[in-house]
């Protein structure tokens, strides 16, 4: 039943552009299953945000003091790294749409490198937290902070695995200017990770 439902979705009115920028009707950019996954993931994050905000309303002092002790530099660097990685993956998709396999691979490797950099900065941030006495059980704010950021880190790792798979398939000439649905889907998933962080950063590090 689910399969038949998914099969009907492309006819639901989704469209996409081909390499020449022409609109191709009755298809969705990437894979429809990925869009369902993306919205499921975003809903999960939204639920976390709502629980965070409810806890903030009940413990205003704890949540007001919490961000001041966080490593804002690490948060800012990770935001810059993630928006840069979104730029890299957008360039990779643009390159494959023009049939430039080598250029596409270059941008994909840079995306993977950006993901690894994000993980490195996150590791430094957690180590820094530990040295300054911030732990997941320090108070309610830090419990949420660790829950949100570690959950996001896991999504980055999943995204990196996906990008690695896409790199492998690009090496084997799976994608072309006309057929690149898998690569495009992986790119959309990576952008979703960036979008989630774009909200997490002000929510946890900036707003008090």
């Amino acid at each position: 039943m689910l399969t038949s439902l998914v099969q009907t979705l492309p006819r639901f009115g989704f469209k996409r552009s081909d390499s020449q920028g022409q609109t191709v009707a009755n298809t969705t950019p990437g894979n429809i299953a990925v869009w369902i996954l993306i919205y499921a993931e975003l809903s999960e994050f939204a639920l976390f945000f709502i629980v965070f905000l409810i806890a903030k309303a009940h413990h205003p002092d704890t949540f007001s003091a919490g961000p001041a002790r966080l490593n804002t530099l690490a948060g800012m660097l990770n935001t810059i790294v993630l928006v840069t990685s979104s730029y890299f993956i957008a360039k990779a998709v643009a390159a494959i749409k023009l049939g430039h396999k080598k250029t596409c691979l270059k941008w994909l490797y840079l995306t993977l490198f950006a993901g690894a950099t994000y993980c490195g900065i996150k590791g430094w941030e957690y180590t820094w937290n530990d040295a300054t006495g911030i732990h997941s059980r320090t108070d309610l704010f830090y419990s949420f902070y660790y829950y949100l950021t570690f959950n996001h880190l896991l999504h980055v790792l999943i995204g990196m695995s996906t990008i690695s798979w896409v790199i492998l398939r690009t090496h084997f000439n799976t994608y072309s200017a006309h057929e690149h649905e898998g690569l495009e889907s992986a790119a959309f998933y990576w952008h979703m990770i960036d979008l989630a962080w774009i909200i997490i950063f002000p929510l946890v590090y900036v707003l008090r």
Partner: protein
Amino acid sequence: MPKQKVIVTTWITLVGLTLISTSFAESTETSKTIAIFVCMVTIYKGWLVINNLMGLRFAVRRLRWMMLGYFLIVMPIILITIFFPDGVRQLTTL
């Protein structure tokens, strides 16, 4: 503007907006004006990623608005809890 130039301009804008948002993290307390500004900047950043980096600007409207709508719902919810914490507390007390 050519597509490649749009991608580069979007990236530079996103980095600039991130630096602006971060400067508010250094203040001891978030005023309501800053909160509105930071939320507006976040919505704009989401809009930039969705339209220009994901390339949904010319995608079917339903799909694009599903993504943009996420930011247009989540960010106002954040503002509501900042502006009306007592109301949220009362609403969520069992």
